[in-house]
């Protein structure tokens, strides 16, 4: 039976402090599992990005206050059923988390020309960069 799934990640409100749990909501997981199999497979990439983020952005929505976008670069992903390929260098994988730390969107983004670990146009899309990996 589907249940919420916690994933340890950097606290966007306190990036240097203890890690916190982001939550994959059960209903979201079940929806992807039942009706969107490739997206379900790519939850692996989402989990990897939450565990190994490279950038965290805040203020991701105009009409919904709060929320964050974690980005990173998984090694591989599914592009269609049974087709696993290296994750492209000119894309970044983004995981969107709402103010309750619930994951609601996981997808690739086109990259910024200067910093390929940022989604394109991030300066205008988000209110700012919360945290940046130094590794």
């Amino acid at each position, binding site marked *: 039976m589907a249940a919420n799934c916690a994933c340890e990640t950097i606290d966007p409100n306190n990036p240097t402090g203890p890690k916190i749990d982001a939550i994959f909501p059960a209903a979201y997981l079940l929806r992807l599992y039942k009706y969107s199999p490739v997206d379900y497979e790519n939850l692996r990439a989402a989990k990897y990005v939450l565990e190994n983020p490279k950038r965290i952005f805040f203020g991701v929505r105009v009409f919904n206050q709060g929320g964050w976008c974690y980005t990173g670069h998984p090694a591989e992903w599914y592009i269609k059923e049974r087709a696993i390929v290296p994750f492209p260098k000119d894309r970044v994988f983004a995981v969107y988390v709402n103010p309750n730390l619930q994951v*609601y969107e996981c997808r690739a983004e086109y990259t910024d020309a200067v910093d390929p670990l940022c989604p394109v146009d991030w300066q205008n899309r988000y209110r700012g960069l919360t945290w940046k990996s130094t590794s």
Partner: protein
Amino acid sequence: MEKHFLADMMAGEGKPEFRAEPWYNPYGDCIVYKMADEAVVADRIDELLTVYNSAVDNRPIGFQIKGVQATIRKLGLDGLAVASEADAGGVKSISIAALLLAAYEEGEPTLARRRAYASVMECSVKKRTIPADDLQPA
């Protein structure tokens, strides 16, 4: 590829089957539609619309409409209702096209936006409505 980290949890949930229909994601307050079971690369058009391009060949295969609750607050369910149902004792479904038009009206009428919204409106969406009862934010 190693075993999926959710494999044990999903063991009793039946056989997956891709469904090309729009659905309301309450955690993101957005409507999501994909017409193909492929990974997507997001092409953000504006604050309310993101087009999903296929990671396989870059063709548009879907979209995400954001800020659904704000649009409902602004227009009311009646303003987004499917016309044939609007007078039959409450709003049963809202129209995806009406939501898209409402989203378009929020921004500048640029050529890029017009093209993007037009391409989304031309998507072959079989189910063009969302049940009003589904539109409950998390």
